[in-house]
């Protein structure tokens, strides 16, 4: 099935079938990557604007590559300062861009709700590339794609997310998406970083790292934003690494087939030790490769593409 929606704002909005359709399409695109010519001409003549109000390297490059491999025309717009500081609202900025006739906007913004807002005021398709701590749907999808490659059907599989759950859009998108596919999500982190209400979103809470990893099929380790330390959320990097860092000792407490993911960029030897980051249990670079495929799939399907024509039917 194609996606019968204009925008991709969050995984909360997607049905199980929609998620599976994106993942199957992404697998079809992923298979093209190993050919000498990796691009397909299906978005020729379409214009995509990457609107990044927050600094981003890998997400932006991943989207750009996805757009280029679909042969779309691309415009990049990065603004370190918010539109507020320039005295222009997001609506003004976006409507100006839309007036130049674009088909799709990929946006990262520090404010939760920014992508949904843009989707409401514009006719162009909007893909949320992260709206504050709210959602980051393509990250959630690439995480799930990577898990599925390892685990097959995710029904009943156990995924443990470790880190600053409060401020993580990755955690929220994972919780929603994995929940739709029947996986069981546990969140773990310092008590100051795990809001009580997260349980109502569909995740189990286990603050003891040893218990949280014991039965997991997959660990998804979140990046710790070091600047949070100045907000007294945790005492020090050293303390964080000691209590919640995933290292070889922690991995020894997991099932042998349990693998490790990280959305990047990593703080080596804080949330993840270097030996784990480079070790045999990690699939971090597979996530990065899958990211491009997932973004191609989302762009293609939102543009009305039919997954069947790619041989990606269910």
């Amino acid at each position: 099935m194609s996606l019968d929606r204009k925008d991709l704002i969050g995984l909360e909005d997607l049905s199980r079938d929609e998620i599976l359709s994106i993942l199957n399409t992404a697998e079809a695109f992923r298979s093209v990557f190993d050919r000498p010519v990796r691009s397909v001409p299906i978005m020729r003549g379409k214009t995509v604007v990457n609107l990044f109000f927050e600094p981003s390297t890998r997400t932006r490059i991943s989207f750009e590559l996805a757009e280029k491999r679909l042969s779309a025309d691309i415009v990049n717009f990065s603004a370190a300062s918010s539109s507020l500081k320039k005295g222009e609202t997001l609506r003004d900025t976006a409507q100006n861009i839309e007036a130049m006739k674009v088909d799709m906007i990929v946006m990262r913004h520090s404010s939760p709700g920014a992508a949904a807002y843009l989707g409401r005021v514009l006719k162009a398709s909007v893909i949320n590339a992260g709206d504050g701590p709210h959602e980051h749907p393509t990250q959630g999808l690439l995480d799930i794609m990577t898990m599925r490659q390892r685990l097959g059907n995710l029904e009943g599989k156990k995924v443990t997310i470790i880190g600053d759950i409060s401020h993580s859009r990755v955690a929220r998108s994972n919780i929603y998406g994995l929940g739709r596919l029947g996986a069981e999500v546990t969140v773990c982190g310092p008590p100051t970083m795990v809001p009580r209400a997260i349980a109502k979103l569909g995740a189990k809470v286990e603050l003891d790292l040893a218990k949280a990893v014991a039965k997991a099929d997959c660990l998804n380790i979140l990046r710790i934003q070091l600047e949070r330390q100045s907000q007294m959320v945790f005492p020090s990097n050293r303390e964080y690494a000691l209590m919640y860092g995933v290292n070889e000792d922690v991995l020894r407490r997991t099932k042998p087939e349990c693998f490790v993911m990280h959305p990047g960029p990593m703080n080596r030897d804080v949330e993840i030790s270097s030996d784990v980051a480079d070790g045999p249990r990690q699939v971090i670079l597979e996530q990065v490769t899958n990211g491009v495929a997932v973004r191609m799939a989302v762009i293609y399907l939102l543009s009305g593409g039919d997954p069947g024509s790619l041989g990606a039917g269910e």
Partner: protein
Amino acid sequence: MDWNWNRIPAEYLVTNVKLARGGKLSKRKGFLHIQKGRVQALGVGEPSREGVPVLDGGGLVCAPGLVDVHVHFREPGQEEKETIATGVRAAAAGGFTSVVTMPNTVPPIDSAPMVRYLLDRADEAALCRVFPTAAISKGLGGETLTEFGDLVRAGAVGFTDDGKPVMHGKLMQFALQYAKQLGVPVTCHAEDCTLSGSGVMHAGYWSTKLGLSGIPRLAEDSMIFRDVELAKATGGHLHVAHVSTKGAVEIIRRGKEDGVNVTGEVTPHHLSLDHSSCRDFSPHFKMNPPLREEEDIEAVTQGLIDGVLDCVATDHAPHTGMEKELMFDQAPFGVVGLETALAVCHTYLVLEGKMDLGVLVGRMTEQAAACYGLPVGTLEEGAEADFMLFDPDERWVVDPAKLAGRSRNTPYAGKELTGRVKATFLKGRLTWHDAAED
């Protein structure tokens, strides 16, 4: 004799109305006799005064002009949001004849000339009585007391740094001691900023879901606890602005039981809306304190019923369309409330069977005025004739474009409310009536 809205005579009768006074709504029809801006007589039944023009009230409720002890009129400095002139127009349209203004203008009301300026501007507009509060601290800086005595002489009715808390405990203690000597209250905007941090909405399920920073109840409760204890220690009068949590209601309840001189207010939005309103990230539901949970709504409602919370106040906080077009976390806190206050409370409290209309009117008139010792809010023989006519049955849909004030940031846009202010009179003079729109 035909009633002419455009020429209100010096002497007239308002007949066929149900009078709401002293916390009670009369079941029998009554009348008001107005002469030269004062209430000449009032009572039940039919008056017999030949030759006096008659306004037939058609069975409407006739109540004292409403009193709002918490409004932001933004002048001077932010006239793009509201001015005294547009603010009193909104007040009149909401049935209000007296308002207490907050001092967090730009620059703030922290000196006697600023108070006089406000009073002059209100006199020019002449649609509503304006009672200014002044800042507790110079420049709202939270460090040095303003000249309380001079400010009271100029007309300030109380002191507050509203919009911000007084984080400095000793400064709050001195403010209460000093204000006590002058016979005026100190109003607290209760928020421990170290606990509210960068929060933009109530800390709970919805903030977690939406990824927005939360403001915990504790930020409010702990500050109210401190201030009630300071009021107890000093004997000063503490007025607690915009109470929003169940814990705060209990702290104030205990304070009152212990004989502390503490009063409290609650806004129509905290009586009617909860944090799930923020689900679509609309900044029209962003205010401080934030919309809380169902159990908080129940607690503040019960507090208002019991009189633990003395009155309803709007915290009328106008902002421009552009500001409320910003993303939720970037938009300013606050909503307008004057023109919907009575209808919202009537719809959510009276029609839900939680409170009698007579009691509600008392909490929006007499008991509100008492929080600041204002000589208004009652209908008595010989008193100046501030009153309003209210149709408790009329249904209407809130249309932001039709608001009389300058700003449109109402959380009730598109909502149907029951009960409408039909006309407002200040000192016997018409300041607003419903038909004026047609």
